[in-house]
């Protein structure tokens, strides 16, 4: 350690907010320097009697430089006792700086630098096809709809594909793996963690109660049983349009899952989607509208370095386009839409749908968002095969 270093450490252990509070309550005067592997510049923060007075990061100075450093998740800090003679550029108190910076961070106004939330050491799977099955964590758990709690030991099956059952659970603690039984054996699709849901919307929408996948507890898992009667009642009160939208979302999730299974069964030889015409919506295009299919077919296709991958077939009653209130990781940003010649569509009222979405109970809202995350993650699994194919000679 250099000679006048008074205090140093790791930012992933003690964040900048914590460091500033510590130095602040100690009334320290000196220079705090920050380094992160992701940036070539070293950041400097000058403190006088516990309050930041100036900062610099490359060419940026003052408050702007200081705020930017709040986004550094990993790296090192080092504090040296020094006389600080610089001008008082930052006029705010340290708590004001810290609270403002964290607010900006949460609002996405400060860029996060370094590893975003690590999937804390989830064991990688010994499956030849996946280095790591993605783990999806859900939002804060809403306890309002939980009627009972159940515990499952590591390795036990929670539901079995093909069996009957219509319970829906929310994961209170632990990680659960979703598997599909296929002709080529078991395919692990996703791992889901705290706040995620086990069970499908289909049981609420159509009363269908055949389990479409197997779910296994990866570690010791605590589940909350949801009051499905209440969820069903809430669903019953939704507008027909919103019900259709949810049904379409459920179909999209099934489609994507089926595509992944198909690719797996063909030993990863996923067929490249060959377009015969220009896409209706190009991947990455700017689209504000949503569409509902009234006739014909459409295809959701993702361009990957290995080729175009068909993620889902859409039919009459299906929604596509930019549903700005719900990101399913498909079109328009991460997939294109191709249409059959006979395709006809109408425009749903997105504002009304969005309002209805925002008015859902927290549990229902979380459930829908969870489905959207599953679509995103399962699509990535399907595309993984395409990559595998091109990587192999």
């Amino acid at each position, binding site marked *: 350690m250099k000679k006048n270093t008074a205090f140093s450490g790791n930012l992933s252990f003690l964040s900048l*907010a914590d460091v500033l509070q510590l130095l602040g*309550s*100690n*009334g320290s005067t000196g220079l705090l320097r920050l380094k992160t592997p992701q940036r070539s510049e070293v950041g400097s923060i000058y403190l006088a009697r516990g309050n930041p007075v100036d900062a610099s990061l490359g060419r940026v100075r003052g408050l702007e430089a200081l705020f930017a450093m709040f986004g550094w998740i990993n790296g090192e800090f080092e504090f040296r006792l020094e006389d600080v003679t610089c001008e008082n550029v930052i006029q705010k*108190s340290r*708590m*004001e700086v*810290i*609270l*403002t910076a*964290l*607010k900006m*961070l*949460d*609002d996405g106004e400060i860029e996060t630098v370094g590893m975003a939330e690590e999937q804390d050491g989830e064991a990688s799977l010994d499956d030849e096809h996946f280095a790591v099955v993605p783990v999806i964590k859900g*939002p*804060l*758990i*809403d*306890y*309002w709809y939980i009627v009972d709690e159940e515990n499952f030991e590591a390795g036990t099956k929670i539901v079995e594909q093909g069996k009957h059952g219509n319970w829906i659970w929310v994961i209170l603690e632990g990680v659960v793996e979703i598997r599909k039984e296929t002709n080529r054996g078991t395919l692990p699709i996703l791992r889901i963690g705290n706040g995620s849901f086990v069970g499908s919307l289909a049981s609420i929408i159509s009363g269908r109660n055949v389990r479409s996948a197997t779910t296994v507890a990866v570690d010791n898992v605590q589940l909350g049983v949801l009051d499905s009667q209440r969820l069903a009642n809430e669903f019953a009160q939704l507008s027909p349009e919103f019900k259709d939208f949810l049904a379409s979302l459920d179909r999209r999730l099934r489609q994507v899952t089926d595509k992944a299974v198909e690719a797996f069964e063909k030993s990863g030889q996923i067929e490249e989607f060959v377009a015969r015409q220009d896409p209706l919506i190009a991947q990455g295009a700017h689209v504000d509208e949503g569409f509902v299919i009234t006739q014909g077919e459409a295809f959701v296709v993702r361009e990957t370095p290995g080729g175009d991958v068909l993620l889902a077939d859409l039919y009459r009653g299906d929604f596509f386009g930019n549903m700005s209130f719900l990101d399913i990781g498909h079109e328009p940003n991460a997939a294109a839409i191709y249409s059959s010649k006979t395709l006809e569509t109408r425009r749903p009222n997105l504002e009304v749908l969005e309002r209805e979405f925002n008015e859902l109970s*927290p549990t229902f809202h979380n459930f829908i968002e969870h489905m959207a995350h599953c679509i995103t993650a399962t699509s990535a699994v399907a595309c993984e095969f395409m990559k595998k194919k091109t990587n192999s000679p």
Partner: protein
Amino acid sequence: MAVFNIRNREIECKIVYYGPGRCGKTTNLEYIYRSFTKQVSGKMVSIDTDGDRTLFFDFLPMGIGRVMGCDVRLQLYTVPGQVKYSSTRKLVLKGADGVVFVADSMEIRREKNMLSLKDLHNNLKGYGSSVFKIPLVMQYNKRDLEGQIPLMSIDQMKKDLNAQLKVPDFEASALTGNGVGATLKECLKLTLKSLQRELKWTE
């Protein structure tokens, strides 16, 4: 986790006002800030977060004497209600020594109160604490609206929120200041008691 500042001979304690959005957390703190000017040190920090504001200021309570030869300095905070402000909430709740849970008496907020309390419990669990361990005081706010808007009865609120916890609770109207001081005083008392217990235990 109170911080002992040896140089200033001060113990810094953190008291956090928690509760559903628009329940009156900020109104509580604003009232304290305005009415106890002599005990407030420094400026009030107010950050506009979606839905409500996040407030912070230092408070030097009078008449409680010294603890272990140190003066007590309180840091009073409100927590932003919205889920997305996780960094802010984490910073505020981390190391909280005491919590005031402000519940909204309005009938239509019944569910929000219960959800928020569960949320608090969840958040505290992340720091190895819980609503059962941390010094906690319950406040049934907005009693001044009695007769104007449908309010829940105190009995019902006690049953909803305090049946298991059995912590000290107060009726209040943060707008008029009724019950605000009593709530803070009780929370401070519990916090200091718990600190003393902790200190003796480690000796």
